[in-house]
């Protein structure tokens, strides 16, 4: 499926896993940013990733709880960085360049780099 073709946003884009060009998981599509006007052509301007994009997708109390635990960070992936949309969203660039691996990198610092099989 082309990245720029017609698609159903809810069933074919929201919540899809995002994979960067190095085949690393970068989260899921939590929300999308659209550009256009009612009655005109609408385009996906960017993918929004992170707890900051949960607004409107869950009850207020759950959103509050999520924000307390995970914060409200949000990464924005411009549409021109999308390589392909299929079972996953493939990106043209690295996740680090788009701010998609911040939490992963922070948590990685806690894991000792020894002892693995």
């Amino acid at each position, binding site marked *: 499926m082309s990245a720029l073709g017609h698609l159903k946003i809810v069933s074919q884009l929201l919540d899809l896993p*995002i994979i960067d060009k190095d085949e690393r*998981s970068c989260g899921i599509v939590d929300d999308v940013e659209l550009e256009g006007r009612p009655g005109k052509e609408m385009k996906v301007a960017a993918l929004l990733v992170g707890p900051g994009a949960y607004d409107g997708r869950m009850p207020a109390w759950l959103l509050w709880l999520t924000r307390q635990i995970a914060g409200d960070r949000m990464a924005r992936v411009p549409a021109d960085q999308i390589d392909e949309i299929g079972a996953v969203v493939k990106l043209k660039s690295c996740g680090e360049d788009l701010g998609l691996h911040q939490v*992963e990198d922070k948590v990685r610092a*806690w894991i*000792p780099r020894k002892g693995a099989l």
Partner: protein
Amino acid sequence: MRQAKGDGDAGGACEVGIGAVARSPSAHGQRPEPDEEQEDRRRAQPAGLQPGLQIVVVDVVDVELGDEVERLDGPEHRVERTDARADRQKLVSGPLNVGPEIPGTSALEAAIPFGRVGLMLALLGMLFAVAGAAVETCMSNAYAVSQFFGWEWGRHAKPWEAPRFTLAWIAVMLLALLIVLTGVDVMSLVEYAVLFSIIVLPLTYLPLMLLANDKSYMREHANKWLAKGLGWLFFVIVTCAAIAAIPLYLLTSGGSG
């Protein structure tokens, strides 16, 4: 009085002493005289039984309701009584809180024919089985969480390559440990878990079935009419099971009748 099995040879051969005294108050009246009690203990003491290390296993076969079982577990002759009303064939054992309601007790079965080696092998087997199941369950939960949030995950990834996945399975293991340490009845917990897994079954089954039926995703692999029909039939069945699960659980007192 009934003497339990293995009163002599078995205890000496494999260091698992087996001996018991089962006494019927109706047959003997009240508690026996001290001399008679000492004689009972002497006969119940298996040959070769050493203090402290052996497990005393009592197999009460034909104890009448209301009988009492005395357990002798060492030269100090500490006596405990177990009411045999609950179970006609009851295993009463050892100085270390070994009982039939504890799954590990089944390892003693291997000790009877094979002695200490059999017991160790059985315990090792149980350790690996339980540890393997624990690891698998923790991983399974971490897989679900990681895939839901789109984190790096995978058993073959080194811990620092999939750090949130690693933290997730460690967190699940610690949470499970905390639950067990509360002293909750694990078997009841398992029953509740199975019950709720049935309740959510239609909710997990339906998306997968719809996906398998969707030609835009599955293309030539999408379900055909027969698979679709069977899929919806099974969906009706699991939905009925989900609806009936809680009423059945309550009506049958958790399946115990």
